[in-house]
């Protein structure tokens, strides 16, 4: 297929691609633009695209009003913590399923996924009561645990599909070399699966970062992440669009930057073994 690509084709494709990309990105762009407007400009018609009075006062207000850093730190702790825990438990499980499969492996995997089908609100009260009695409400540990549980099926599945791509010869070679299973996991499998693990990590960070039900309902102050931060800007009384836009921009900025920088990894991992 290395035939000459005609200029027309390149131009059409470029125009089409940019148009599509722009349309899809537009809501976010618009949000970011809005965050630099005054509340009055934010809903004025006709809409102001670029020639409005640019102001950073919304960011000032947001910063002044709530502790962005505190919430962002909590989001980071939550995302990293739940992912780390997920890897710790998920890697051995995925290893077992990929390299020592039994007849039930497939159904186990599907069962794991099916645990994600319960609407969280349906089990809120039981979980809340358990958390209350174990003192886990509004603790990092409690939140990390619940996000970990919510994402574990995805972690195991992703790692599983990724591990299956690793030639089992290599693990056998390690075994012939006298490695125990632990060492095999540590020295051979994990380093080889770094790209897959990286993408698993990424996806889970994104999922944990954006999860808004448990984070809102099980935290108050100490462990409250950015979803809570956002929730304090969608006020039912008062004008809030520009401020909300500013807060939202702040809330998604870290994950967006992370995602953009590592999109290659993300793309790989997201495929869930769909691509051979």
């Amino acid at each position: 297929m290395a035939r000459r690509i005609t200029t027309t084709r390149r131009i059409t494709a470029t125009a089409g691609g940019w148009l599509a990309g722009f349309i899809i990105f537009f809501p976010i762009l618009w949000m970011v633009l809005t965050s630099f407007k005054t509340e009055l400009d934010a809903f004025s018609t006709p809409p102001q695209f670029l020639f409005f009075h640019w102001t950073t006062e919304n960011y000032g207000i947001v910063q002044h009003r709530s502790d962005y850093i505190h919430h962002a730190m909590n989001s980071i702790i939550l995302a990293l913590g739940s992912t780390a825990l997920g890897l710790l438990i998920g890697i051995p499980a995925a290893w077992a399923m990929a390299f020592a499969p039994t007849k039930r492996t497939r159904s186990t995997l599907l069962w794991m996924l099916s645990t994600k089908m319960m609407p969280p609100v349906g089990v809120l009260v039981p979980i809340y009561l358990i958390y209350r009695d174990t003192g886990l409400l509004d603790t990092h540990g409690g939140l990390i645990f619940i996000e970990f549980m919510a994402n574990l099926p995805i972690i195991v599945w992703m790692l599983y599909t990724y591990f299956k791509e690793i030639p089992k010869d290599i693990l056998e070679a390690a075994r012939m070399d006298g490695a125990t299973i632990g060492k095999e996991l540590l020295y051979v499998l994990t380093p080889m699966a770094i790209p897959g693990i990286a993408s698993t990590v990424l996806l889970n960070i994104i999922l944990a970062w954006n999860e808004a039900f448990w984070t809102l309902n099980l935290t108050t102050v100490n462990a409250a992440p950015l979803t809570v931060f956002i929730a304090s800007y969608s006020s039912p009384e008062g004008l809030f669009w520009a401020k909300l836009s500013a807060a939202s921009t702040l809330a998604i900025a870290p994950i967006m930057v992370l995602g953009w920088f590592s999109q290659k990894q993300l793309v790989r991992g997201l495929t869930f073994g769909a691509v051979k």
Partner: protein
Amino acid sequence: MGKIELVGVEKTFGSVNVIKDVDLTVEDGEFVVFVGPSGCGKSTLLRLIAGLEDVTRGIIRIDGLNVVDLPPAKRGLSMVFQSYALYPHMSVRSNIGFGLKMAGMPKAEIAQKVEAAAAVLNLTPYLDRRPGQLSGGQRQRVAIGRAIVREPKAFLFDEPLSNLDAALRVNMRLEIARLQNSLGTTAIYVTHDQIEAMTLADKIVVLNAGQIEQVGSPLELYEHPQNLFVAGFIGSPKMNFVTGAAAEKRGATTIGIRPEHVATSQTSGEWDGVVSVAEHVGSDTFLYVTVPEIGDITVRAVGELALKPGERVFLTPDSTHIHRFDRDGKVIVQ
């Protein structure tokens, strides 16, 4: 020391019996090659010895000790895989030294042994590269380095050369032969390449459908195949088989004659046929001759023979090299 004995070894996957009651003794220092058609169980047998699979029944003894319940690492064997199975994230040095590290050998000693192995295999300049930065042949040498550095009781090779191109294959074959010779370590080698088997083996084991058809030195197998299967399997091009009158005349159900043992003539001979294809490969010419009532016969003739397809030719089998088989395919000993 490295004597390996298999007694009544069986292996079933699910309900399929893949290895059927195999008895085999590999003497210390011997180079044994398993050959057989694809799917006959060569790899499986090797992996049973390695401990990568559990035997279903039977005993495997290494130096007299039954190892069926030992994990691979405890059997003291090294394996070279078809895919090399190098650790892609480790340098050549770490690849070779990994087994020693796992055995808890001190670093200095590992370094020294790795250097020594690398020197033997001409890998010294590449010690700090990753496998991905090596050529196929170099990778294969790393895999071998990994095997020898542990000074195992025996080497196990599973088609180690099949991923190399023809020229490299010849070189590596020679290297493996030299190495095993100088180390004197027992080796079991799986291949489906005729030439490899013939040139490397002290002893060839011909497997078919999970059973041993014949065990013997390469020339024994070439000269005295005990049944049709081995006769057809060993030798290239394949032995010609003739049934019917020509065989009965010699008191057999089937007779076999190798292409190199058929004489051609343009004037007279036992069989009278027409050349269908003539392959000139420089040094030799292979003729595919259609003989009425006998069938297609392959003949290896001298290189410069100028026969063209469609020409008539007379063939005469060399009677001292005719193999006779009975109805069950067993050889008839005169």
